[in-house]
């Protein structure tokens, strides 16, 4: 199609006159030829060429517009949208804006101008999500979700829905309900390279933290780097620490800390901070891990430069591209405390419906279709993500099914009842970095984080 557009300006001229709809689709090349063709068309039209009048206005067909940032899904969406139009006659038009920061800026600016499309997605924290809802940009899908004994809602993993759900009595005072349709799910776990462990004389992956630490010297003796992860991206440090906070002190105490009732200088928190020091002291951490972006970490693990990694379910796709022969397994992070280990997971991405959309009903219908079994299976297959729809999990590789199995052990800050201040999260993550590079001790960091926390609490009370 691209080629014919360029090579055949003449045919464009015919199109221009006979089929207004087509020129509408291919407007951009029309742009280049417009300078020439515009004049020609002018003359021809003036000289009385008959054109079917009103052909444009009769095509006031429903067109749903959608924005997303998912570069890897552009083609898949185009294909699904084509199928949908064939089936129902409703046109859906997706536009991709990427990378995610450019997308976020676009969505926020469009929210101010009131030009959000019918379908869009949000990146970021629950707090921002709630602002979009309060500003009236997001439709509450609760009624639709609960229709026919929750037929729609029950399709999904419960964690996938939870990310865009507001419960009654939520801290943001948002009207309770489900505000998004999940597309896929993910969670973040530990991965280990079976061959490298064997090389170091280790038979089984570690179950406990102590077993894990004991492997450090063994791996080092065999000349193998221990652990790699994208800890140059703050949220991955946060995620790892959060897993162990749940494991060491239990969910309630973590929430109490966020509420400001438990101090970060509590021994349990210092123990969490200390884990990073222990990993460092055991020589586990790949040198330079604190400034490593996840893509570099993935490249190192797939090229067998490290025995362990901490990464999300998407990594299966990455590793298969970079090293199809990689022999690896997935496991929960080795346990340290007595409480259950909770890993981060939930919806990888969700679509929201614009509350001011002119085609709200049609948009919801389309999203219902998009999240149905067949479409979810297709999306999962093409994009190699885990589907949000439970019935769409077909044949999976052992590693991927390991990720699916853990879905019920997941949690995510976005589904917690309370949320930490961004400043505190920053001080927390940066503090752990400082521990890893040996700049500060766990106790010092605990004190620093608590100081920031108290300052923010005071500001809030004012």
């Amino acid at each position, binding site marked *: 199609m*691209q*080629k014919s*557009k*360029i090579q055949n300006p003449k045919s464009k001229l015919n199109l*221009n006159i006979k089929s*207004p709809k087509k*020129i*509408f689709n*291919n*407007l*951009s*090349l*029309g*742009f*280049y030829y*417009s300078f020439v063709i*515009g004049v020609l*068309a002018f003359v021809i*039209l*003036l000289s009385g060429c008959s*054109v*079917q*009048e*009103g*052909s*444009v*206005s009769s095509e006031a067909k429903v067109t749903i517009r959608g924005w997303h*940032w*998912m*570069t*890897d899904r*552009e083609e898949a969406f185009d294909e699904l949208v084509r199928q949908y139009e064939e089936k129902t006659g409703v046109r859906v038009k997706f*536009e*991709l*804006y*990427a*990378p*995610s*920061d*450019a*997308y976020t*800026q*676009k969505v*926020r*600016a469009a929210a*101010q*101008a009131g*030009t959000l499309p019918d379908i869009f997605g949000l990146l970021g924290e629950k707090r921002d999500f709630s602002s979009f809802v309060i500003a009236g940009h997001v439709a509450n899908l609760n009624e639709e979700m609960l229709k026919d004994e929750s037929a729609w809602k029950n399709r999904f993993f419960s964690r996938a829905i939870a990310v865009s759900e507001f419960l009654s009595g939520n801290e943001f005072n948002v009207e309770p309900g489900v505000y998004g349709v999940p597309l896929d799910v993910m969670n973040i776990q530990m991965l280990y390279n079976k061959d490298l462990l064997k090389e170091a004389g280790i038979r089984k992956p570690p179950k406990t933290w102590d077993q894990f630490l004991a492997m450090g010297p063994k791996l080092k003796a065999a000349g193998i780097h221990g652990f790699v992860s994208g800890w140059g991206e703050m949220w991955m440090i946060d995620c790892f620490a959060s897993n162990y906070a749940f494991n060491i002190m239990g969910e309630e105490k973590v929430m109490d800390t966020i509420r400001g009732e438990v101090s970060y200088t509590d021994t349990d928190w210092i123990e969490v901070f200390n884990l990073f020091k222990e990993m460092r002291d055991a020589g586990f951490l790949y040198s330079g891990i604190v400034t490593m972006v996840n*893509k570099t970490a993935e*490249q190192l693990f797939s*090229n067998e430069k490290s025995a362990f990694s901490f990464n*999300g379910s*998407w*990594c299966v*796709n*990455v590793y298969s*591209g*970079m*090293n*199809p022969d990689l022999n690896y397994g997935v496991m929960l992070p080795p346990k340290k405390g007595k409480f259950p280990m909770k890993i981060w997971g939930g919806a990888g991405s969700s679509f929201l419906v614009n509350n001011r959309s002119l085609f709200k009903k049609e948009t919801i219908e389309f999203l219902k279709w998009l999240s149905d079994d067949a479409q979810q299976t297709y999306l999962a297959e093409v994009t190699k993500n885990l589907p949000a729809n439970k019935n769409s999990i077909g044949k999976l590789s052992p590693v991927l099914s390991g990720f699916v199995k853990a879905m019920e052990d997941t949690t995510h800050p976005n589904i917690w009842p309370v949320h930490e201040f961004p400043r505190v999260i920053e001080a927390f993550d940066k503090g752990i970095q400082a521990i890893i590079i040996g700049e500060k001790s766990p106790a010092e960091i605990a004190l620093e984080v608590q100081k920031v926390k108290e300052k923010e609490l005071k500001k809030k009370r004012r």
Partner: protein
Amino acid sequence: MKSNSKHIIIKRLKLVVIYIFLSIVALTCVFPLLWMVGSSLKTQATVFSDTSLFPAQPEWRNYYLAWTKGEFSIYFLNSIFYTTFVVFGIILISSLAAFGFSRLKFPGSNFLFYMFLAAMMIPLPGSFVPLYVLVNNIRKLLIEFLANISPQLMNFFPASFVQQSTAFIQHQAFPRFAYIFCMINVGLSLSIYILKTFFDKMPKELEDAARIDGCNKLGIWRHVAIPLARPAIAVITIFNALNVWNEYILAQLILSTKDTMPLQRGLIVFQGMHVTDYPLLMAGMTMTAIPILIIYLIFQKHIIKGITAGAVVG
């Protein structure tokens, strides 16, 4: 005689040192380029495991894949379109303004010039929201205007033609020119500053000569100032062309449809949320670097040709 040959030896030695120095720096510059081209010929599996600069079996297909998958044909045209318009716009507008600030007297000229200078310094991080709202408001006005005049136009032209052209203006012409004006604004202050520095060095005698020949102010700008500032114009051309060529944030903010997007939009496809297709990305980047290199090759000659112009300066 002896001292003379010693002199020559020292001169030769100096040259050798210069060459070695130049070559070392040049080598560090070429290496990343070679690495990029080399990586573009590997596969996703070998791009980091194969440590040779150029793979034994180059995957030339990557270039074809990058071109088609990134839909480069349309983006290339768009980028050339934007770059041409923005660079021409900037040269025209900034050289007029710089000439005004440098050679003409009018109240407030200093104030205005320092305003441009200050604008160059203050980055406006939050400006994308007001900018978007602004462009959107202008679009609304335009749509209203078109809706008002279209019934009258329909008396003269067939209805479908009017509808097509209004749709065309709304969806193609308007966003494209809005983007062009935004980008002109981005490069304007700096270009005015650079050009004014060069115009300030222009000798008065030339101006007087031109005046005697019957040139008015515009004529002096056209026939004296512009040719003399050729090196500076070459510099701002390269600078702004590179800037527009690599821009993507503003493009995605102002432009809404794929078919109006510039080249960088094609490269984004290879940098997925989780998977980066390095060989295709590198192939795409190599292809996008070539036009800029060509622009540089063309214009850097003018920087040097300044020699003839320079003979008059001072």
